[in-house]
């Protein structure tokens, strides 16, 4: 992943007027955006703003109520073809605690029918510095180590789109650094990345675009090179405090 690819080309993610309702509540309300290969969207917003719901729709875990969402041109919910293109990282580690990191990542590799799976599993674990503990049961690992394994699991099939929902949760400084480097490398290699985070500095340094969500809507959507960090921090604080 050393060669840098300039952002552009046909969008990997196209979202138009996407709405997701739970009963009467609109968790996502008419969201529109697109991401090309090599672009990264940082999603900010208070708890309950709809960030996780938006990611779950794009991951194929929830059906849109209305509107249109596409992954590489495949309309969601797009079944296995769309899900094969996505890597999901969550603040829940999504691992089997009785299995080892190697077994968890190998299981994902088999589900995604990864070619040369054995090598890819080792590479993914090495990337997250987990080779030394690769055979210990996951339940014996610290929260941060489990999160590293979870990231290795999500990356094993080289997804075109990475959805990262508060991926820094539980990571220590070195884990956070490894994750930032990984996401930056993926972005530079042409992967589209959407990252939900409460860390403005981290998110803005990584992203090509930033969106501020409140009550299911994008109240701001900007290219990060046009953002003034101080002004944006104020807007974020206002959104979080509900003003």
């Amino acid at each position, binding site marked *: 992943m050393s060669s840098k690819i300039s952002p552009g080309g046909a969008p990997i993610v196209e979202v138009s007027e996407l709405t997701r309702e739970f009963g009467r509540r609109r968790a996502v309300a008419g969201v529109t955006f697109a991401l090309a290969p090599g672009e990264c969207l940082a999603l900010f917003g208070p708890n309950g703003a709809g960030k996780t719901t938006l990611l779950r729709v794009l991951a194929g875990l929830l059906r849109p109520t209305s509107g249109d969402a596409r992954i590489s041109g495949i309309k969601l919910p797009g079944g296995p073809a769309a899900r094969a293109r996505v890597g999901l990282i*969550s603040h*829940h580690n*999504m691992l*089997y605690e*009785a299995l080892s990191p190697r077994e968890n990542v190998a299981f994902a590799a088999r*589900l995604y*029918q990864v070619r040369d799976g054995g090598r890819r599993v080792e590479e993914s674990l090495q990337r997250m510095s987990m080779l030394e503990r690769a055979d210990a049961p996951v339940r014996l690992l610290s929260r941060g180590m489990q999160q590293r394994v979870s990231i290795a*699991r999500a990356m094993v099939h*080289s997804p075109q789109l990475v959805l990262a929902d508060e991926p820094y949760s539980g990571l220590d400084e070195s884990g956070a650094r490894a994750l930032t480097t990984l996401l930056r490398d993926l972005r530079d290699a042409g992967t589209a990345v959407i990252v939900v985070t409460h860390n403005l500095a981290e998110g803005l340094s990584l992203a090509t675009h930033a969106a501020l969500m409140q009550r299911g809507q994008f109240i701001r959507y900007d290219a990060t090179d046009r953002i003034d960090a101080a002004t944006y921090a104020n807007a974020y604080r206002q959104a979080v405090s509900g003003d």
Partner: protein
Amino acid sequence: MPIGRRCRVTDTLRDAWVIARKDLSIEFRTRSAFFSAVVFALLGLVIFYFAWDPTAVSVTDLAPGVLWVIFTFSGLLGLHRSFGVEIADHAIDGLLASPVSRESIFLGKAIANLIFVIAVQLIAIPALVLFYNLPLGDVLAPLIAIALLAAIGLVAVGTLFSAMAVNTRLAELLLPMLSLPFFVPIVIAASQSTAKLLSGRPAAEGGAWIKLLLAFDIVFVALCTLAYPFTVDD
């Protein structure tokens, strides 16, 4: 993206086996549900044995009922665990976000549950023969066939209801409440055909019950596989 997907049916079965292997690996590591089910089955046999009055009820009348009641309740212990392992740490999200079909997930869970139930039966049936001094001789092969047919039906229905109940607060109560009414035809057909076998009646007499088991299996394996996606797709 180093992945390749080909034939839908081949992929469905292949993915199902990957999921079943994973579930069996987890059970092999922990063995918690298996030991619970085996101990439950053996305790059930012992309790029925001491409650039995051989002068009032013959062994060939009692044993089929004992076997299939124990089989049903010990099977429930394994079925409850089936989706329980997916809920901890939201592993089910990883599974549902992967490119495997929902049908593969159901079939994978069902295959693992079937192997689990058969493994419990492999201990419970010899224990029953030993406790009740059953004359199995010629009827062993048909009894194995009945056990297998009954296990398939129980697992198909139980796996579906396990998926439905697992996200509720009363999962341990809800699973038997939902499943048991559907298990009744299986238990009746299995115990009736076993009773005919053990009492040495002509094979044709039990044949109708075995056909019922077979029909139940075909209908409910198909129905439950088709219904499962509706329990997970929100």
